């Protein structure tokens, strides 16, 4: 692949027929990509290598061609006319003896410039053809039709610094402090301690069996308050029974719970 290949043989790139002999032909500029393209086509008619091309003859051919086109009242684009003027000047420089004290390029140098320009263009045309004819992917060579590809497994890596952790702790700690200050109101339940106190105080004046309900506070507004007071008073009665300060009685399951002062021995 790295060996320089020999340059390919010149290929005919023109998509339209090149102009035939200068005498009788249909003059058309439609098929040419500009004046250099026309010059290259004319040069090919000399059937010599571009290096041994007669630039003087090429210039004459071009001028004849443009003259023929104008005789036929064909529209000749400005580019072609500019090139014609330049070639007419080149022709005069090539034919007339060079002035002694010369400024700018000599006729020979101008001819060489044109020759190089034509050579470059022709080379690029050859190389385009070589490239397009070479082993191209998807045309002459193929990559794998069903590549499996690489599967990407994404994995999360959590990043967290110590200072972030500490700030988080501080943040929730402050939140907690704020919450603690807001929640100073006592819970709305009837505490067992309160029930114990109330029950102990009332038992003294209860010589006979009385229902548990009778010991509940009078100011219970909601059903929740009532249930809470009932539960706490019941728990308190058990606590007092354990220490022998109250007697409990229930005749049947779910029946009313009765309590009184224990009988003294």
């Amino acid at each position, binding site marked *: 692949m790295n060996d320089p290949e020999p340059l390919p043989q010149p290929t005919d790139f023109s998509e339209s027929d090149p102009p035939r002999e200068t005498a009788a032909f249909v003059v058309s500029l439609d098929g040419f990509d500009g004046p250099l393209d026309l010059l290259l086509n004319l040069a090919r008619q000399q059937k010599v290598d571009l290096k041994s091309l007669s630039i003087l003859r090429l210039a004459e051919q071009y001028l004849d061609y443009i003259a023929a086109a104008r005789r036929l009242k064909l529209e000749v684009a400005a580019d072609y006319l500019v090139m014609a003027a330049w070639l007419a000047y080149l022709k005069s420089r090539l034919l007339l003896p060079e002035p002694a004290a010369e400024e700018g390029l000599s006729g020979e140098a101008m001819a060489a410039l044109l020759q190089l320009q034509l050579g470059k263009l022709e080379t690029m045309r050859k190389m385009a053809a070589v490239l397009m004819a070479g082993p191209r992917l998807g045309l002459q060579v193929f990559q794998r*039709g069903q590549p499996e590809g690489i*599967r990407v497994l994404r994995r999360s890596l959590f990043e967290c610094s110590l200072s972030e952790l500490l700030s988080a702790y501080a943040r929730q700690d*402050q939140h907690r402090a704020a919450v603690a200050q807001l929640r100073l109101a006592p819970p709305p339940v009837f505490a067992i301690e309160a029930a114990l106190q109330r029950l102990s105080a009332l038992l003294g004046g209860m010589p006979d069996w009385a229902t548990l309900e009778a010991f509940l506070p009078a100011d219970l507004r909601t059903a929740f308050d009532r249930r809470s007071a009932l539960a706490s008073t019941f728990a308190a009665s058990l606590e007092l029974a354990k220490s022998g300060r109250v007697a409990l009685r229930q005749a049947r399951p779910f029946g009313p719970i009765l309590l009184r002062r224990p009988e003294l021995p």
Partner: protein
Amino acid sequence: MSDGQSPLRVLEALLFAATEPLDEATLARRLPADLDVAALLAELQAVYAPRGVNLCRVAGKWQFRTAPDLQYILEEERQEVRRLSRAALETLAIVAYHQPVSRAEIEEMRGVGLSKGTLDLLMEIGWVKPAGRRPVPGRPIVYGTTDGFLEHFGLAEIGDLPGVEELRAAGLLARSAPPTRVAGGESLPMPTAVDSSEDA
């Protein structure tokens, strides 16, 4: 295999370039008529058997495939750095400072319910682990930090975490905050609903 157009070379190229598995009839059409395609395929299969790419018969058709033992080569792990949500960060901090700590205690301290994913994520990352049960009614699971946690945060032991007093000195804790103990002391109202925005 040395002659330029050997049928094995042709088979190789055809199977390589094909965009789908090829059956023997299709392959035979591209080869000189008198060849035993099945035998050639068996030969090619043998040639590739020890290699990184194998010739496989799938559903009656033929296809090159990466050798099964090299499948791992075709997997690329890509790590994505992610940040913890605020809920996860605070939960982690509470576990670190108050371990062993139960879910209910974390919720109590944060004043908001903990979505299921938060503790799971911290355990999946490997920073938090269950650390037994508390011997109280309900026997709740308590959580603590892992060795991975210590490694990640560059701590020799959990006692190396800056103390509450140091945090306060650093201005991280509000001075007005009363020192609260988790298990005992005054208890805060328990959260009820799980905040759905808490997802880690």
